[in-house]
């Protein structure tokens, strides 16, 4: 191993960026129409939601393919548009074509971004807005890269399910930010599971257990709505609670392995440690028993409490072996361990999506992410109410969390759900 390799590749699992570096080098170059091979049309990003993830997604897309530029931006807050532009401009100023009149602020900013000539929309606002934005983007005839989760309630889920076929009918691609589905180690591992390496799956476990996440101290000039938006993790109408916002990743892996979604959830949870008003009204822990067809059960845990055992993981129990998916390891008769080079999944998901668009075969990942989001919502509903909740009950729920009209002003914090008293609606 040379000294340079030592520096660049501290671990065998580390990704040596040969091809990516080459791509990067090209993407720094000025955008010259006709400089690309045929079929590599210019990707013009319209970013809706200019926080850290949206900003990161733009940079991932720049790294993931040639011929990508940013042409329009929208956010509820002017300061987020400005900070995002500054961050992207640090190393990619040549790929930014967002004059003042294509920077949009406010709750209707998304409409203006969609009215621009952007052809690749990135949705990275808090997930409560996702169904509205996604529906508008498909209606506007745009390809969409959408962050997860895809909705926070039953009405939102139904709206998005209806878009799956609409997007296909219009020839539009929809990629979802469930990046594990583009991560080499996960792909290699689950390919083996689906080829029968552990036999028939009889049980599963998954978890996203970690400590507290960030919050922003309330400023005197902030209205209730602005305070909730800037602390969106802690309000169910915006985030869906952390089982939906965060744990959906692990649930999605199990649904992927099972090839289907659960039919019911039997859950519990509560708000034990993170109880102050600055943490909104969400729970700090969930434990859900998910029931899949054939009486196969998934035990799912989601916890955000400081000082506890951590685990972000997925495990499958088969009748002929076991798979620790997040460790890319299979034990049993067909024991196996991924020993190849892992990739950069947040970049790869854009590489794959853009390649599909340029090949005229747009990816549509909407159904999977919508099913996984509803799985998480079903678990939340069960934990909030203390009742079993079926797939159909969750899907057909009439509980719409998004306020019918939204303006900056007063807004009460919803009550903390109380199992046994909170009703399923």
């Amino acid at each position, binding site marked *: 191993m040379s000294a340079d390799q030592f*520096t660049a590749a501290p671990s065998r699992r580390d990704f040596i960026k040969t091809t990516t570096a080459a791509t990067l080098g090209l993407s720094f170059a000025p955008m010259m129409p006709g400089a690309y091979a045929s079929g590599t049309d210019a990707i013009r990003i319209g970013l809706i939601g200019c926080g850290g993830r949206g900003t990161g997604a733009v*940079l991932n897309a720049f790294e993931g393919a040639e011929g990508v530029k940013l042409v329009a931006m929208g956010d509820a807050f002017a300061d987020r548009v400005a900070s995002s532009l500054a961050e992207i401009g640090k190393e990619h100023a040549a790929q930014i074509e967002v004059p003042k009149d294509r920077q949009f602020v406010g709750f209707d900013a998304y409409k203006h971004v969609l009215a621009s000539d952007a052809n690749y929309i990135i949705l990275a606002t808090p997930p409560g807005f996702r169904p509205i934005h996604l529906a508008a983007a498909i209606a506007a005839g745009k390809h969409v890269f959408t962050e997860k989760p895809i909705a926070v309630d039953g009405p939102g889920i139904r709206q998005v399910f209806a878009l799956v076929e609409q997007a296909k009918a219009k020839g539009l691609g929809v990629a979802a930010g469930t990046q594990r589905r583009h991560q080499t180690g996960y792909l290699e591992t689950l390919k083996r599971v689906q080829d029968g390496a552990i036999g028939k799956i009889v049980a599963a476990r998954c978890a996203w257990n970690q400590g507290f*996440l960030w919050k922003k101290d309330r400023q005197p000039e902030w209205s209730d709505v602005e305070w909730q938006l800037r602390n969106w993790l802690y309000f169910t109408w915006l985030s869906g609670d952390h089982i939906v916002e965060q744990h959906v990743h692990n649930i999605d892996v199990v649904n992927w392995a099972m090839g289907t979604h659960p039919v019911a959830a039997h859950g519990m949870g509560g708000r034990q440690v993170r109880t102050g008003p600055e943490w909104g009204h969400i729970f700090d822990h969930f434990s859900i028993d998910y029931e899949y067809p054939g009486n196969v059960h998934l035990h799912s845990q989601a916890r955000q409490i400081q000082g506890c055992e951590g685990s972000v993981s997925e495990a499958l129990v088969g009748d002929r072996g076991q798979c620790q998916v997040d460790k890319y390891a299979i034990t049993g008769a067909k024991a196996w361990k991924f020993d190849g080079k892992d990739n950069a999944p947040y970049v790869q998901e854009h590489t794959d999506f853009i390649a599909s668009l340029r090949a005229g075969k747009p990816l549509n990942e909407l159904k999977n992410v919508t099913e996984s989001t509803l799985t998480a919502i079903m678990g939340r509903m069960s934990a909030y109410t203390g009742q079993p909740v079926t797939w159909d009950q969750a899907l057909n729920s009439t509980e719409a969390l998004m306020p019918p009209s939204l303006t900056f002003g007063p807004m009460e914090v919803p009550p903390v759900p109380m199992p046994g008293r909170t009703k399923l609606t």
Partner: protein
Amino acid sequence: MVKRGTVLAACGIAALAAGQPPSTYTETIPGTRVSFEMVAIPSGHFTMGSPATEKGRTASEGPTHDVELRAFWIGRTEVTWDEYDLFAFSMDLERPSSAQPRPAPPSGADAVTRPTPPYGDESFGYGKGKQPAINMTWHAAMEYCRWLSAKTGKTYRLPTEAEWEYAARAGTTTAYSFGNDARALGEYAWTRENSGERPHPVATKKPNAWGLFDMHGNVSEWILDQYDAGYYRTVQPGTVGPVLLPGNHRFPHVSRGGSWDDEASLARSAARRGSAPDWSRRDPQSPKSIWWHTNALFAGFRVVRAVEEQDNLKGFRSAITRDSSQ
């Protein structure tokens, strides 16, 4: 095993620090029950780097050069999660029975900025307690030292690359502090060969001759210096306390010692590595965290304390901010 006194005499060491030679001590972090041990390392000199004949070495480890060092103390073990959690999650400010951390008054140790929380499990399922803390950035390790200094009233910092190698060698000139034969490595270190692909509680293998644990493995350790593969070519012979002071770029900094995820050649006393942007490649946010990597599960650190600080390190601190470029 080589006795320290023998080594010092053989090297003809003259004490640079005035007064009594330092002695090993235990530090208990005030307001907590968490403690760690600091091993006294006398002043001296040694040959830094590896000879061209050493198996597994890279060009960055040469030329070998004579280095002189003042006396210092160094952590007997890598910093554990028991210690790091106090800083990273403000657990030093929590009352045991309280549900909420109380707000930090803006003075002393509490004025040091704490890390923003990671989006994920910082222990990666390996557990906490006496496990070595992992995956923190160089900036975070530097800030930990600043917090620890304010907390204890003693000035702690990261080791310089020269101090680290001097302590790792413990008077030896061989590839490892126990000799040249990597087959004995498993007695002293957790590396890819024996780790089961995970870090282990600190001090569960044999120490080196100076009583330091895990210098060859478990986690690779942050060094104060910037990484430059050609640095040794520029060091003047006989330099006292050589150090390559970093600026405000996020990378590369030196990390030393093998880890649970490394092969034997990277565990050698002279083996060097520089940090790289890839260590954060799974951070979905931009700007990426200045506190946590996402792919440096092999990276940790230990602290040192100078007996008499060299001038260019007095008050030295990380200049990295969220706006720092790679």
